[in-house]
Each structure stands twice: as structure tokens, then as C-alpha cells.
């Protein structure tokens, strides 16, 4: 019984963090047609912000709060320095953001070393571990809901969805598409940063953790359906759920193979993802 509950908690936890990363990937791709290969490293930075802040101040919560803010700024900078110059050159954005991901990863190695880090504050919560996880899950779910609210219920969200649907026409109605690009990139990056911060205490914080999260995140996008925020939710559920459930019974590597197989089967029958319908 206890093992089942622990497994369910693990699944929900991983799925929610995956959802946050996937949402960021989807909104950035949907709006700017940019596949951000450095998105996993934004997740990575989020985790290291928690490590650095909690080591320096002893407060995990300050790190959790700062991580999305730091990543929003990083996102703005990346958009301004790199993406805006090449966003209409699809392949180049993949190359450039991949290059950026290498730079960030090596930067982290230089600053923190190649080994795994443990945020100092994890042991001093004063609360039981499961309670922390439940709280984190509630926070992640609230953030995911807030993201959906932002895109589907606010006027900023309406404008962003308008730019996604028809960039040229939205611009001809006076909507500043550059501003929407910047806002979306910042929000998407902040989501990844928050996810990284949330996962920092419960996974190995090392320079490879970004890639480890980017791959299931891409799978979620493909399985759920590109260009759909609802698809991000479904895809993260399928991939996150499958990953943790498979990992419970067999080795990590075998679980990965099964998850890939599952994704391939879904994409074989639903090439546009679950929300995209049959072709």
C-alpha cells in the first residue's frame, strides 16, 4: 500500500515538473516556431539557482522564489541576444540554441564542478519529506493552471494566441508582436526554471539533468500534439506517468526503452499527436 502511494506521488510529481517544462517548450515553439534546444538547460539553471541560493543563505524557499525570476531574465536576454536575429531561420535556431545549451552546461561545470550537488537546505525543512512533496506538487499544479489561465482567459493570452494563429494579421491590427515574443520567451523560460527548482531537492542536481528532462519533454510534445497547450498536458501525463511507473519495476535504461516504444506506437497511429487526431 505504502509503496503504491509512493509510486503515485513520484508519478504525479515527475509529471507536473515535466508539464511545466513542456508548457514552456510548447508556447515558445507555438509562438515563434523556435525549437529551443537550450530549454533543458533553463531547467538546469533553475536547479542550480536553488543549490547556490540555499548554500549561500540556507533558505531553499528563497531559491525556489528566485529561480523563475532569474530564468525570466535569462529568457529575455537569450531572446534579445540570439533568437530575435534568427527566428525566421528554423534550422539555425536549433543549432544556435543547441550551442547555447553546451555553453550553459560547461559554464555550470566550471562554476559548480561536474559532480552532483545537494542543496544544503533540503535536510532542514523541519517537515516530513512527503509533506514537502505534496506542497511542491500543489504549487506546480497551481502554476500550470495559472499558465492555462494566462493563455486562455486573459487579454494578453488572447493576443499571444492571435499571434500564434496569424502573426502577420495580428501585427496589422496593431499588436506588437515583438513584445509578445519577449513576454512568451520569458514566461516559457521561467516555467522551466521553476520546474528545475522544484525538482532540485528530489533528483540528482548535475550538469546532465537538463538533457534528462528535455528528451521526455520533447516526447511529451510529440505525443500530445505540437501547438496545443492541452496536448502538453496529455503528453506530459502519458510520458511522465509511463516513465515513473516503468522505472518502478525495471531498470532505468529498460524503462527508457519502453517509454520510447510507447511514444513510437502512439505517433505511428496518431502522427499529429493525441490532440492532433488521425491523419
Amino acid at each position, binding site marked *: 500500500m505504502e509503496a503504491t502511494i509512493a509510486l503515485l506521488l513520484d508519478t504525479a510529481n515527475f509529471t507536473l515538473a515535466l508539464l511545466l517544462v513542456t508548457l514552456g517548450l510548447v508556447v515558445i515553439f507555438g509562438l515563434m516556431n523556435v525549437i529551443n534546444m537550450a530549454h533543458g538547460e533553463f531547467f538546469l539553471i533553475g536547479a542550480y539557482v536553488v543549490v547556490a541560493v540555499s548554500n549561500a543563505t540556507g533558505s531553499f524557499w528563497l531559491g525556489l522564489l528566485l529561480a523563475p525570476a532569474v530564468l525570466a531574465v535569462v529568457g529575455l536576454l537569450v531572446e534579445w541576444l540570439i533568437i530575435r536575429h534568427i527566428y525566421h531561420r528554423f534550422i539555425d535556431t536549433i543549432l544556435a540554441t543547441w550551442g547555447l545549451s553546451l555553453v550553459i552546461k560547461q559554464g555550470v561545470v566550471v562554476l559548480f564542478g561536474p559532480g552532483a550537488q545537494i542543496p544544503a537546505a533540503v535536510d532542514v525543512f523541519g517537515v516530513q519529506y512527503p509533506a514537502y512533496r505534496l506542497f511542491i506538487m500543489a504549487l506546480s499544479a497551481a502554476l500550470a493552471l495559472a499558465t492555462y489561465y494566462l493563455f486562455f482567459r486573459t*487579454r494578453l493570452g*488572447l*493576443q499571444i*494566441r*492571435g499571434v500564434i*494563429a*496569424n502573426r*502577420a*494579421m*495580428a*501585427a*496589422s*491590427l*496593431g*499588436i*506588437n*508582436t*515583438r513584445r509578445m515574443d519577449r513576454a512568451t520567451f520569458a514566461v516559457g523560460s521561467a516555467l522551466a526554471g521553476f520546474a528545475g527548482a522544484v525538482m532540485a531537492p528530489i533528483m540528482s542536481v548535475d550538469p546532465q539533468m537538463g538533457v534528462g528532462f528535455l528528451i521526455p519533454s520533447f516526447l511529451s510534445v510529440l505525443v500530445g500534439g505540437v501547438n496545443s497547450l492541452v496536448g502538453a498536458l496529455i503528453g506530459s501525463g502519458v510520458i511522465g506517468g509511463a516513465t515513473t511507473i516503468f522505472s518502478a519495476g525495471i531498470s532505468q535504461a529498460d524503462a527508457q526503452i519502453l517509454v520510447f516504444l510507447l511514444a513510437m506506437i502512439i505517433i505511428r497511429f496518431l502522427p499529429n499527436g493525441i490532440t492532433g487526431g488521425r491523419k
Partner: protein
Amino acid sequence: MLAVENLVAGYPSGGSVLKGVTFDVAKGEVVALLGRNGMGKTTLMRALAGQLAKQSGSFRLDGRDLGGSPSYAIANAGIGYVPQGREIFKDFTVEENLLMGVLGKPNLPKRLPGDIYDFFPILGERRKQKAGTMSGGQQQQLAIMRCLVGQPKLVLLDEPSEGIQPSIVDEIGRTLQTIARSTGLTILVVEQNLDFVETLAGRALFMENGVIADRADHIGELRDKPELVHRYLSI
């Protein structure tokens, strides 16, 4: 109000389509832009809306040079655009489509005016309906109102009658005429339907091979001088 001078524009790969377009439109005028397909009418509209970069020349709105400005800046300077094919947001409701017309405008309140559905009442009846499910004529009415709600000084109207049943074309023509007369709205309209042009426009420009080749300073000349229509419009 609009002063276009030697405007040269085209597509990045295919050289220039507009080869030096020059004309003026005064405030409150409705000017028709006529010509056969492929003569550059839609290219001119897209260039004036900022969707195509100009290669040389200029265009000014009330003296302010807008050539080279991004399209959102051109829209906010007062040039409204109702493109060929309407380009409404199909997955948005009628109301959301109309909201898109004001949300980007820095000087307008971010809500719809109460009388917005007076001109085309069908839009009011369907305001919660997905725009993509409406007929072509209703979508055209929506595209026009989405533009007008942004309070443009000049409206670029590209083939408003294309693919729309005749009764609705008449309604759109009459409503636009009412709006133009009561508000002094300035319109530059590309249109193949000569009845529609005669209802709405005061004069006409003829486009051929990327330049303004001729003009009819009074719209009645379309009937009085059949050779004009024959030369520039017959196939």
C-alpha cells in the same frame, strides 16, 4: 492624407512587383484601385500595411513617413487593413476577433464600444460563435468591423466581395458607404466587382505592371468611358 511616392516593393526572392507607384488620397475620399490580376494591387496593399518591406520610395500618412515601419506601428499610426481572404481568427469567437482590433491600440480602451454591432447586426447575434463557422459574407463583415473598431484614419480594403453571395455584397457596400459618409472615413479599395465600386468609390486608379497607369477622376467615367474599363480590366 495618404501620399505614396515612387514606391518600389516586392518579394525578397522575386524582385520588385511595384515599380514606382505614386498617388495621393485625400481625407474622406473613397478611392478604388482597379486592374487585372497580377498587376500589383494586392502587393501595393500589403506594402502599405507593412507586410512587405519597401525597396525604395516612400508613403506618408498625414505627413508621417511610414515606409519601413513594422506593420504594428503602421496599424497604430492609423492605417487599417482588411486583407484579401479576410484572415479572421477562425478559432476565436466573433467577440474575441473584434477585441483583437483594439487590444494592440495604445490609445483605445481595451473593450468593445457598445454600438459595435449596429452596422452588422448579425455579428451581434453570433458574438459567442466561433468565427470560422460563419459564412464567407459574415466573416467579411467581421473582418471589416475588426478593422473599424481600431478607429483607423485610412482603411485598406482588399477584394471585399470576393467569394461572397451578391445580396451580402450589396449590404456590405451600402453599410460601408453609410460609415464613410457619416464618419468621413478614408478608404482605398481593391475590387473586381464594378457595381460595388460604383456604389462605394468616388474615383478610381488603374494599375498595370506595377505602376498607376491611368485614373478616372470621377467614378461615373467607368460608364462614360468604356475604353478605360476595356483597356485595364478586360481579359
